[in-house]
């Protein structure tokens, strides 16, 4: 396991993501944030905390989305679900999905399926810390990207606590 980003670099990326979210929207009254479990939920908490500093006095809605029941490879391995916490209405709102790593695009597809069972948002945007662009399997792009990484298909990239780590793949 190798550390890709230490806490200082990570917090720099989070600040820059928060800044571009702020510059695009400025007003967050009709916007809700949903962090995808587990890495995206951790990141989402940090991004929304940063945003609160940029728009003092404004309430920022933040929820956690668990996609376990919507995975397209569910029969390969039955996983225990994580906590789902969406304590607000998403009908006609702009939802900003947050995830730590955008890889094949399958997680985001599952997250969109999950989201639509809560209502019909006006718009959905995607914000990710790391984009592993060359491995995409679905036509999904992020609106906000912290950084792009060149990786092997078999590598695993994860946000663990306050560091981003790479677990090298065995083959190729």
């Amino acid at each position, binding site marked *: 396991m190798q550390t890709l980003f230490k806490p200082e670099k990570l917090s720099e990326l989070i600040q820059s993501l928060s800044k571009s979210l702020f510059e695009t929207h400025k007003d967050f009254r009709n916007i809700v944030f949903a962090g995808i479990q587990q890495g995206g939920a951790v990141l989402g908490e940090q991004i929304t905390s940063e945003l609160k500093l940029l728009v003092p006095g404004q309430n920022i809605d933040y929820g956690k989305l*668990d996609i*376990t*029941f*919507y995975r397209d490879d*569910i*029969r*390969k*391995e*039955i*996983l*225990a*679900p*994580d*906590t*789902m916490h969406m304590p607000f209405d998403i009908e006609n709102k702009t939802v900003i999905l947050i995830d730590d790593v955008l890889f094949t695009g399958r997680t985001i597809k599952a997250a969109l*399926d999950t989201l*639509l*069972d*809560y*209502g019909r948002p006006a718009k959905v945007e995607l914000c990710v810390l790391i984009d592993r662009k060359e491995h995409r399997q679905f036509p999904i792009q992020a609106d906000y990207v912290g950084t792009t990484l060149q990786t092997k298909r078999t590598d695993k990239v994860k946000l663990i606590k306050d560091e981003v780590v790479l677990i090298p793949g065995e083959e190729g």
Partner: protein
Amino acid sequence: MQLSTRHLLGIKDLNKEDISLILSTAAQFKEVLQRPVKKVPSLRDVTIVNLFYENSTRTRFSFELAEKRLSADTINFAASSSSAAKGETLLDTVQNILSMKVDMVVMRHSASGAPHFLAQHIPAAIINAGDGINEHPTQALLDAFSIQEKMRGLEGVKVAIIGDIMHSRVAQSNIYLLHKMGAKVTVCGPPTLIPKYIQQALGVQVSYNLQETLEWCDVANVLRIQLERQNQVLFSSLREYNIAYGISKKLLDSLQKEIVIMHPGPINRGVELDSDVADSKQSIILQQVENGVAVRMAVLYLLSGKN
């Protein structure tokens, strides 16, 4: 984390981690049931047969709804309207159904051990929805889920199981489960309805005094008097049973603390529970029914990947 078994035949076969996994998964399914779309696609490639060789309303509806909420395909089989009435054996019926590519079987049968027999002979995952006087594991799981929700845990909770213990698969499954999760259990009822060696065999306390039992417990799980399973007279009349072991509002109000009332249904109103108790705010009978769907979704989901 996965269940340690391929089937759910009884609580007896589960360990503490299995039970915790089912209960925590059920909490997530309960959240699903509060959404605008109360459905997930998890089991859309799974076909389930509900084999009911014995009458059931609540359990059958609850399983069927759980299956539909998971997007599974379902077929229903009721023994009274099928070829079983023409003399086909259980194994033949099930093998015929399985040749139609069924992945899971939910079964209720009047013979204790019927689901265990099936599990040895067919490759599908079997879920016991009640077998004779043996076990009714999903009822015990939904009871535990409801107690946990109300008491914020199971460890150390004092549960009284009251009524016809002798003929009750619900009592047996509840005792296994509550003991595994660290709760304390007392069974209470007339001596004729409590198995003689239950204290030694299952490690429960036995009481024949309803007032004392209610003073002791945090939760009273009141069982139905199962008239259809009694071929001998075990108490003189329903009226007498109500006087000695029926729970009235007056009795509840006379206790030092407010206890929780549960009942697996269907209630014999005026026999084991008076109407004003069944409908009181201390009763969580309807929450049990609601939780039943979430708990059964959890069991079906967790067993769906084992083929």
